[in-house]
């Protein structure tokens, strides 16, 4: 029997909320699938569209950008810029025909270990039926 497809996900987590939130999930020993490799950035506002395209180009099946809730940004307003920027990236990727499920954004606060866990679980669940991402991937 063929092994089940395990999506590769890169998650850009802002240091102060989402990365802290995923730490919280760890501290509370919540379990979630190991498909996500986190990359800690200072602020969701620092996530360049280049990162997202590159992640897909290098073979990510899904990409997550996660930051502080609106109004809670450690850097006051970085996440507002992120919200705008990411919106355009998302629309563009959908426009060229990438499955919308493959690129997600979430707000996860330092206290929301449960939410982080849920976000990852849902993400993995939605990616599995899609199979590997070959559209933007170098030599798939």
């Amino acid at each position: 029997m063929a092994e089940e497809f395990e999506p590769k996900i890169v998650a850009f987590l802002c240091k102060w909320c989402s990365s802290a939130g995923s730490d919280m999930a760890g501290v509370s020993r919540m379990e979630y699938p190991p498909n996500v490799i986190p990359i800690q950035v200072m602020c969701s506002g620092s996530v360049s569209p280049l990162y997202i395209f590159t992640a897909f180009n290098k073979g990510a099946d899904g990409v997550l950008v996660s930051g502080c809730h609106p109004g809670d940004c450690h850097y006051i307003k970085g996440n507002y810029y992120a919200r705008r920027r990411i919106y355009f990236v998302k629309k563009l990727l959908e426009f060229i025909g990438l499955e919308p499920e493959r690129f997600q954004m979430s707000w996860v606060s330092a206290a929301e270990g449960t939410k982080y866990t849920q976000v990852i679980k849902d993400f993995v669940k939605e990616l599995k039926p899609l199979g590997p991402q070959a559209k933007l991937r170098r030599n798939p």
Partner: protein
Amino acid sequence: MKRTGVFVCHCGINIAGTVDVKKVAQELIKHPGVVHAEDYVYMCSDPGQNLIVQAIKEKKLSNVVVACCSPTLHETTFRKASGLAGLNAYRCEIANIREQCSWVHKEKDKATQKAIKITKSAVEKVHRNESLEAVSVPVTRKALVIGGGIAGIQASLDLANSGFDVILVEKSPSIGGHMIQLSETFPTLDCSQCILTPKMVEASKHPKIRLMTYCEVQDVSGYVGNFKVKILKKPTYVDPDKCNLCDECTKVCPIVVPSEFELGLTGRRAIYIPFPQAIPASYTLDINACPGLLPIACGKCADVCEAKAIDYDMKPQIIEEEVGAIIVATGYDLYDKENMAEYGYGKYPDVLDGLQFERLCSASGPTRGQILRPSDHKEPKEVVFIQCSGSRDPENHCAYCSKICCMYTAKHAMLYKHHVHDGQAYVFYIDIRSGGKGYEEFVQRAIEEDGVVYLRGKVSKVFEDKGKLKVWGVDTLTGKHIEIAADMVVLAQAMRPAKGAQELAKKLKLALDKDGFLAEAHPKLRPVESVTSGVFLAGAAQAPKDIPEAVAQASGAAAKAVAVLSQERLYHSPTVAKVIPTLCTGCGMCVQVCPYDAIALKDDKAEVNEVLCEGCGTCSATCLRAAIQVKNLTLSQVHDMISACLGG
């Protein structure tokens, strides 16, 4: 040539239990640039740290990666250790394989694979790290305290007594805040003014405190240790040094307006002293009320003033000051009358709020301490106190609990009974929150000794009926409908952030919480610090609190400020944005997005003020040409981390 050492921590079984730490080390030694990889049971222990120190020395490591717990825990530890071995602290990076791996997964092989990727990714990052030195700046050893209520006064005194100069700015003509309006304070029932005025005097006489009343902070620039503030001094048109407090001017002043201090229960003249013990003890001419500063318009006050203290030509002044730390203690206001139409607040003169009732109880108040109805000056025989008026009502009003109302309502009911022995006091409450030293006993005393009737339930409506105030409510314990014909209704209005606090927050680049109170840096661990370093919070500006809490936080904020001011120089993280001039075209987008005004254009190129920059990197994501990047988290580094994450 890169010579990187990788150190994998077991953390007992916390990591080793789910991650094959030996395998992680074996895989990492194969990674280009890695010349040393080992695992150890507790890397953060002294022997663990020594392993790192030795390896750095013996293998001449140029970089270090420690795969262990979250960087929030031991990053400093391992950077210090690297420092001890003569390696620049910023050449040490943490791979979080505990919170973000071993603790959240069960299948060992998968967790191990993930740990390997996380660690490789950290190695790739560290390979492009540059050695950095902390950015250092001198400190202006002077503090600014904004708000002259009990919190502001306490903070100023603590700072001054620690030997630092303090500027205390208060927007109204006198310091004292709301506390000076109170009659007695719970749970001890000692006279509020009696305990506050000595502090007010001490503050005004303190050689290190510069009192600036009737002033407002207009602009704040700079950064921790080096703030520049512009303070607007509004004209009082009265020279406090000449004024001898003869009070002749108020006698001749033809204008009467509602008194702020008495909360409109009485009036005051256009030229006035807010209250007898006001500090500074001087008169203020309220330009908005005064018919005009020209002798032809009125000029009576100037005519009668023998001290020639009244100067119609006084102009607003902008005073510029430099300070090293700022404490914001802007306090609270009560929830607006307009919002409580269902309780007839603002419509019926005998529906009062807590502060107005304080004034009625106060010996120095408009009724000289007798409790009388504002409408007919009769003694109210039945008084209904309504708690949570505007609080704990997410649908219509404020979602939060204003915290102090349970206690002061009990106090009010009690004081009422002390004044009107044959009167009856009813308290409508959702539930009683009396956490605090002697608080619960205090409430019990009100119920048992003073026979205050507590009714569990919400009041639906208050309306006038034959000279009485009909109060409709439901006792949720008995389920009975309740109707009380009261002579007076006192509303425990919700506490709101003081008006103008929001604008001030903008000037100081402070964050606000969802209710508009000033946000602390961390709800548990940094409760008196704001998100802007060097700016601290005290009192009800941060959240509803009672006097002891406000005083405690004020002292806490003062202590934090002292920690800044007592430094020779301040040190700032060097992982800040860096401009690559050959790529920068000077479009200025980074300048626009920077939350800290840390970037400016100079000769058509962006330039970063390293002291202001917090390294958030929003500029680098905005820049279309990668011309501004954050040191040690550059685009190239993230690129390499992405490859590593994806097994590349």
